[in-house]
C-alpha cells in the first residue's frame, strides 16, 4: 500500500514538474505576451496542482494536507484574476495580440476602457 502511494506520488510530482517545465519553456518560446499567458497558466494549474496532490498523498490526512488544499484553492482562485487583470492592462496600453486578421485585432481593441469610465 505504502509502495503504491509512493509510486503514485512519484508519478504525480514528476508530471507536475514536467508541466511546469513545458510552461516555463513556453514562456521563453512563444511569441507575444498573450500567447505566453497560456504557458503561464500551465504552471498555475496542472504544474502546481499535480505536485501538490502528490505531496498530499505523502502527507495523508493531516493538517499539512489541509493547508496544501488551501494553498491550491487560493492559487486556482486568484491566478485567472491576475491573468485577466494583466490582459486588461495590456489592452489599455495598446499592446494588442498578434493575430491573423484585422477583425480579430479590432475585437481585442474594442475592449479598451474609455477614460471616462475609468474611475467608477
Amino acid at each position, binding site marked *: 500500500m505504502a509502495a503504491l502511494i509512493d509510486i503514485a506520488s512519484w508519478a504525480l510530482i514528476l508530471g507536475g514538474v514536467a508541466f511546469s517545465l*513545458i510552461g516555463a519553456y513556453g514562456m521563453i518560446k512563444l511569441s507575444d505576451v498573450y*500567447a505566453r499567458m*497560456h504557458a503561464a*497558466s500551465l504552471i498555475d494549474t496542472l504544474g502546481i496542482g499535480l505536485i501538490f496532490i502528490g505531496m498530499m498523498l505523502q502527507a495523508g490526512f493531516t493538517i499539512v494536507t489541509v493547508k496544501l488544499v488551501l494553498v491550491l484553492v487560493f492559487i486556482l482562485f486568484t491566478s*485567472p484574476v491576475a491573468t*485577466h487583470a494583466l490582459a486588461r492592462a495590456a489592452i489599455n496600453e495598446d499592446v494588442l495580440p498578434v493575430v491573423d486578421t484585422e477583425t*480579430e485585432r479590432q475585437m*481585442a481593441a474594442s*475592449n479598451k476602457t474609455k477614460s471616462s469610465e475609468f474611475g467608477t
Partner: protein
Amino acid sequence: MLQAISLAAALTAFWVLLSGYWIPLILCLGAASILACVYIARRMEIIDHEGHPIHISFQGITYFPWLLKEIVLSNIAVAKAILKGGSAIRPQVLQVPASQRDALGQVIYANSITLTPGTVSIGIDEGVITVHALMDETADGLRTGDMNARVCRLEGDPDPRRIAGGGQP
C-alpha cells in the same frame, strides 16, 4: 444578514482548518477574530450576494469536477502544442456569448475560461466575453458553448433578490 452568518460560518471553518490548536485562549481569540472580520466586511460592504455567493454552493458539485477534467485535457493539448511549436499554434481572438443572468455568473464563466489553458478572457462586457485562444482546438472547444451552458446551470434558478450593482446593464 443570512450572508453575514454564512460568512461567519465559512470563516470559522477556515480558522479551524488553519489552526488545529484547541487551547481555550486560542479559541477565544479565534472567535473574536472572526467577529472582527465579519464586522470589517460589513463595514466594507462586501457582504452581498456577489461577495458571498451562497446560492451556488450546491450546484458546484457537478460543475467543478467537469471543470477540472477540462483543465487537465486542455493542459495536455497546450503542452503538446508548445512542444510541437510552429503550425500547431495559431493565436486568435474570438467573442463568445455569456448568457448568464447576473454578473457573478459571467465572472465565473470568464474565470473558468481563463483557468483552462489555451484560452484567456481578455474582456468582459454585457453578455459578451472576448477571448484570446492559443490554438484552433481550444477555440473550437469554447465555440460549442458547452461551458457557457454549464455555468448557466451552475447558477440554477437565478436569484430574484438581485441588488443594485449586481448585474444591471
